[in-house]
């Protein structure tokens, strides 16, 4: 007849055997796993940084030959204009930036949960007011506001930066959590439980919050991402304390000392690259959490394959007729030995016919 949209099955019966129950770790999307591993590398670098640093990052080597020196055995990442060792600075930077990011993440996430849940729970004017506050601080661009805030502070060290960033980092999460809380607890129920005098804190702590764990986790990751990005940008402009060796500060000095035009790539590439990789780790984590929470996104990755062939939504439902599997050559057999789905299919094929409902029936039945 006409060209058919058939897919040759690798197992002749067209039905695969049930797979082993996959372990929890293996079921996590690949992206999440990669994110965890990558982030773990940075955490290790932060923890062991002080031990691994070859020099004091602020030590300025007076030797002129070591000013803006390219990477060498003594200085794995070269030196800055003032003879400081870039590697030590970077290690310190990782630690400081990570500390800052996680601290802001924790504080801001806590604030978001507080504001979001209480807004949804209390309702009425409280809710309207808190929502308005969240929305206003969401729409005002963060970086200029941060610059103005930090610009007036007498001391702009790590603690001040953390507090300021956390102070502006909660609105997004608060909005999302509030929406979710409203969905979980219909407002009528909330009003009713208030009438009956049920302890609000118990409801919040034991029922509302545990239901939103993945949302809160995603929110935390996002906040850390924002904190790292914002702090690096602020340090780059020079608003935060330039004596602190955060990754952004290294870039600030690199920029102001014309590292670029002097071609001192070892000065500005490592810190920026690390910031990007940290960001990547967090984005991967986030996508993984997203896929865990949103079944459609996850299914989209799994569903799109049928028998190893990717399908688009516009493709009609595929038809697999029972055809005998082609005899594999030695090469294909060897290659297939690495394929897990092929292994399963082969196992199914060898088990075929044992106990199945509906073996091919005799010609009878309905006409």
């Amino acid at each position: 007849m006409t060209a058919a949209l058939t897919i040759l099955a690798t197992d002749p019966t067209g039905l695969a055997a049930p797979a082993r129950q996959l372990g929890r770790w293996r079921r996590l999307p690949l992206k999440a796993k990669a994110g965890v591993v990558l982030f773990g590398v940075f955490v290790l670098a932060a923890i062991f940084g002080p031990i691994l640093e070859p020099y004091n990052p602020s030590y300025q080597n007076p030797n002129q030959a070591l000013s803006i020196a390219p990477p060498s055995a003594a200085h794995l990442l070269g030196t800055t204009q003032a003879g400081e060792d870039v590697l030590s600075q970077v290690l310190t930077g990782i630690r400081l930036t990570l500390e800052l990011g996680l601290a802001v993440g924790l504080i801001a996430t806590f604030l978001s949960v507080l504001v979001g849940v209480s807004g949804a729970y209390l309702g009425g004017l409280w809710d309207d007011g808190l929502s308005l506050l969240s929305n206003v601080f969401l729409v005002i661009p963060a970086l200029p506001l941060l610059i103005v805030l930090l610009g007036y502070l007498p001391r702009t060290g790590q603690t001040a930066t953390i507090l300021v960033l956390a102070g502006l980092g909660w609105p997004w999460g608060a909005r999302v959590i509030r929406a979710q809380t409203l969905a979980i607890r219909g407002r009528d129920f909330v009003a009713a439980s208030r009438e009956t005098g049920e302890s609000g804190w118990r409801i919040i702590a034991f029922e509302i919050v545990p239901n939103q764990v993945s949302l809160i986790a995603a929110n935390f990751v996002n906040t850390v991402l924002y904190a790292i990005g914002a702090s690096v940008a602020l340090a780059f402009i020079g608003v935060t304390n330039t004596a602190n060796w955060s990754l952004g500060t290294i870039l600030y000095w690199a920029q102001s000392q014309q590292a670029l035009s002097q071609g001192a790539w070892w000065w500005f590439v490592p810190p920026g690259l690390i910031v990007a990789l940290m960001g990547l780790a967090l984005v991967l984590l986030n996508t993984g959490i997203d896929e865990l929470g949103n079944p459609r996104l996850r299914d989209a990755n799994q569903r799109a394959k049928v028998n190893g062939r990717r399908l688009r939504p516009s493709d009609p439902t595929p038809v697999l007729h029972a055809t005998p599997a082609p005899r594999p050559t030695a090469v294909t057999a060897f290659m297939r030995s690495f394929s897990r789905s092929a292994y399963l299919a082969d196992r199914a094929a060898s088990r075929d016919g044992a106990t199945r409902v509906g073996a091919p029936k005799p010609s009878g039945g309905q006409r």
Partner: protein
Amino acid sequence: MTTDLGSHVPALGESGGRGRFSGEPVLSIRDLSIAYRTLAGDVRAVDRVSLDLHAGEVVGLVGESGSGKSTLAYGATRLLRAPAVITGGSVRYQGARMDNPTDLLELSADQLMSLRWREIAIVFQSAMNALNPVLSIRDQLTDVIRAHLPVSRQEATDKAAELLDLVAIPRSRLRAYPHELSGGMRQRVMIAMALATDPEVVIMDEPTTALDVVVQREILGQILELRERLNFAILFITHDLSLLLELADRIAVMYAGQLMEIGTAAEIHHEPSHPYTKRLLRSFPSLRGPRRDLTGIPGTPPDLLDPPPGCPFLPRCTEGTDACKEIEVLLAKVRTSADPSHVTACPFVLPDDPAGGDGDRLPAGAGSVSSAVSPAVTPLPTPAGTTEVTS
């Protein structure tokens, strides 16, 4: 709003439609099997289902949630998305406009595209979800008309206006958007849209489930009237058997992906030949009959990932025996039925049927049927408490 259907249309309330149709079926599904490929294995959503639909006939497909009725309908038109696969069977369609029958399962994507809607249309369950929120009613009606028929934009708009007339919706609604219409109006728009290109077959997937009973009545009346006028066949999917008793010509009962019984509405109503059908009939109240206790069907449908052998209804069947575990689920004629096409999958629960004689069915190791229904075999106990089958 009264629905004056005209005297030639059977009013709702009379039992059964027009009974059996004869001749070549318009849509002929044979041994269709559909499975969902999951990481844990294949879920057999539809297992070797065979069903015929004749021109102008109303066939009702009834079953509980998860019985595979929607999967059957969407799979037959190959609208199911991954991870669904069709693992066997054929779906032959021969409409009045076609010279030769075609197997839908062998068509390419382009061929399917031209056949869809023009020959087989679908009325989806939830009109709010099935209508595009950003397109006006006119756009949604005309785009399908222009996709299949070589007409100008103006002609398509005129046709769209006529379609709205057909379902008693004011023409001014052409400019409206779906969210501006009431639920009943939206469903009627869906029906009008389904008829836009004059199809032979209309699959209706629980079209009235989301509506209140009054509107439901109107819509059903409308459907029947349109069927009279335009003579298309309807595959009406629902979980509400009571509806089908008045609406359908024939009824097919589905359970766990397999057909349990097929017969005319009158036969199904008065001479049900399967325990599941009997229980379904007893689970809704009758407006006219004597009062009786409502009974549900306790238990849950079987796991389709690894179905147990034999009859799928066995765990919940009050008349089942051990022999049921070894039968093959086949549809065989009900000898005592007035309807020659009445078939059932239960070999045992028939009043005086000496089944097994003509070679229609070979239940392995069951011996003679009479011994199976003798009191010597203890039937399964009926658990206390009931669960409603129909939602």
